[in-house]
């Protein structure tokens, strides 16, 4: 399968090379340029369907000495690398008649890797009905993504959405089933716009059960204000499963090239699940304060810098995290000496908390991207740094995106994880990763 992918990619490259060369011969005369624009080209239909297909090859280079590698594989995995081929199809459709709109986005992922062979996953990312009786009012019912907060990589105030993938913060997310409304009011004066967005999210065994074990109606709201050229949101959420929380965010352009944004949230009675080096567990209850402060800067050379500092009040301290690693270390020793998996298994029960992204307290995120370097239009190289300030470990991700033809995007991405022993990025399963993808929209 991987050979098929390599061949396909090579084929795409050849097509692109010759396609570009061919276009040079045929399309460089402005005499042929069609400057007529007939409105029939974009005549609106009540329905629309769009899709994108992505072929992706991921090569992971294992860090066999890493504790999370030992936790997952013990001594069962002999290979140093793992290959995975993904075929990812997303279909999006909508139907609009007067003030009623139906919308759906569906994703199907087919993948092949050495461990699982061929597998597939399907999910409904969004599907909802929207009722818009006026420009000020809208009501939505169904599975919908509510993305709140101003952070690029982190979003402490995104109360009603699933966590972002730090490796790909722009990726689409799967929504939750909810009922929501939107009221917008514009006015003259300093306060130019207000908007109120209440959200109701039922949790029971049929829908949204992944949120928590208790049946309940989670509800909350966001209040948006636009004044003094600044966006400000206040938000809250009331829930037993997710803990009550209140938040605020803002965003403003300080200069044409410099934007500042921030998110903050208080999570009341947050329960932090802790495990020590002996496998003893405890629960710590406190009000957690999460916040983020970020800048986005565009230089005169068209380089964009996104810098964010994130304080994760729900995160673990360096000592707590080190204890977790010590437990895995002892568990692996126990297994190596006696084949007893007790301690490793105990550590695994806490992996959903400790092994999640940004599980500690203080992070710096920096993404630098350059638009159209070397006079190559639609080419964007970028590099991303994620730095764990608590244990000085880091991840570095260089990547290149190129869109040489309409609706076609090529991406080459690598990731390197750096850190001492018993640090977050130093103990990840992979020490490096290479991703090559071709995405086509139609």
């Amino acid at each position, binding site marked *: 399968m991987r050979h098929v992918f390599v061949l396909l990619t090579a084929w795409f490259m050849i097509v692109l090379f010759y396609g570009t060369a061919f276009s040079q011969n045929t399309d460089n005369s402005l005499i042929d340029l069609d400057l007529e*624009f007939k409105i029939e080209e*974009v005549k609106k239909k009540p329905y629309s369907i769009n899709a994108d297909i992505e072929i992706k090859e991921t090569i992971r280079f294992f860090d066999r000495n890493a504790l999370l590698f030992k936790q997952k594989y013990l001594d069962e995995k002999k290979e140093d690398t793992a290959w995975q081929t993904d075929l990812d199809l997303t279909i999006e459709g909508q139907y609009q008649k007067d003030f009623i709109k139906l919308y759906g986005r569906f994703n199907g992922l087919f993948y092949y890797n050495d461990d699982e062979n061929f597998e597939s996953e399907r999910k409904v990312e969004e599907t909802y009905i929207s009722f818009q009786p006026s*420009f000020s009012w809208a009501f939505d019912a169904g599975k919908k993504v509510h993305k709140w907060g101003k952070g690029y990589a982190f979003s402490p105030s995104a109360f009603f959405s699933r966590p972002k993938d730090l490796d790909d913060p722009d990726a*689409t997310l799967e929504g939750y089933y909810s009922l929501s409304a939107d009221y917008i009011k514009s006015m003259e004066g300093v306060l130019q716009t207000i908007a109120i967005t209440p959200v109701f999210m039922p949790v029971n065994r049929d829908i949204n059960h992944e949120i928590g074990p208790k049946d309940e109606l989670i509800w909350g709201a966001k209040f948006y204000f636009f004044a003094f050229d600044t966006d400000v949101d206040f938000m809250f959420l009331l829930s037993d499963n997710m803990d009550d929380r209140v938040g605020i965010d803002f965003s403003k352009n300080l200069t044409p090239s410099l*934007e500042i944004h921030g998110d903050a949230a208080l999570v009341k009675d947050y329960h932090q699940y802790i495990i020590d080096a002996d496998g003893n567990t405890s629960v710590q209850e406190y009000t957690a304060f999460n916040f983020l402060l970020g800048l986005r800067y565009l230089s005169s050379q068209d380089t964009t810098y996104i810098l964010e500092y994130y304080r994760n009040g729900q995160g673990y301290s360096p000592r707590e995290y080190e204890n977790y690693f010590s437990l895995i270390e002892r568990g692996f020793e126990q297994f190596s000496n006696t084949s007893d998996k007790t301690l490793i298994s105990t550590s695994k029960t806490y992996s959903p908390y400790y092994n999640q992204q940004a599980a500690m307290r203080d992070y710096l995120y920096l993404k630098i991207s350059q638009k159209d370097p070397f006079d190559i239009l639609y080419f964007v190289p970028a590099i991303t740094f994620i730095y764990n300030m608590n244990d000085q470990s880091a991840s570095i991700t260089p990547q290149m995106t190129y869109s040489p033809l309409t609706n076609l995007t090529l991406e080459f991405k690598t990731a390197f994880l750096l850190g001492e022993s018993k640090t977050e990025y130093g103990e990840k399963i992979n020490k490096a990763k290479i991703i090559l993808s071709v995405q086509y929209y139609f």
Partner: protein
Amino acid sequence: MKKIFIIILLGLFSAIPAFALDGNEILKQVDRNLNPESFEMYRKLINIEPDGTKKEFVMFSIKKGKDKIASVFLSPASEKGRSTLRIGDNMWLYIPNVGKPIRITSLQSVTGGVFNNSDIMRVDYSAEYNCEKIETIDNGYTLYLKAKLKNVAYETVTMSIDSEKLLPYKIECYAASGMLIKNLYFKNIKDFGNGVVRPSLIETDSPLYKDYKSYIVFANVKKRDLADEIFSLNYMHKIDGLR
């Protein structure tokens, strides 16, 4: 002596019309001739690279007042559903995948190519610029415009206007350093109906993008009453519904 007096008198009279011209009033008139106060339009943006490679974007836009404009991309498929909003100096981009508006700047370009966001989300020139000087030329006027605030894409703009139609035919855009950023050429004047007569094509080139060309083709420019609420972050993902 009599001859000298007549020459001086003629010179004074010929100078009077130029002194009497109010550049800012002309600029406002140019704005209104370019588009109605509240309107909708379709635009096709074409980027052409030096090797002839062409990329097209089609967008539907609405504008209200001097400084509110919103657009949604209709094609290509990779950009479909992306929308932009500008209120005064504030600009946002909504990408369906990202699911929330993010702030962007006037110097960036949501499409790539020579046109930047300020060109694509153009508000009235009189909202951003004061006319500091006006010159009478053979077939019209040249307005020398200076930005009212610092946070605009071009510090100064030189606008050449056809005095009969009161429409621009060339605009030169300069950075604060005095460097020429780009030229905009307004061509193909077309009657869109209901009194809207304006250039249907803007061509641009730039010394910063040597051998690159970009065009904006206009279609269906027509007056439309629009609610203020449309020009808000919460409405950005619904702009397509206005078509």
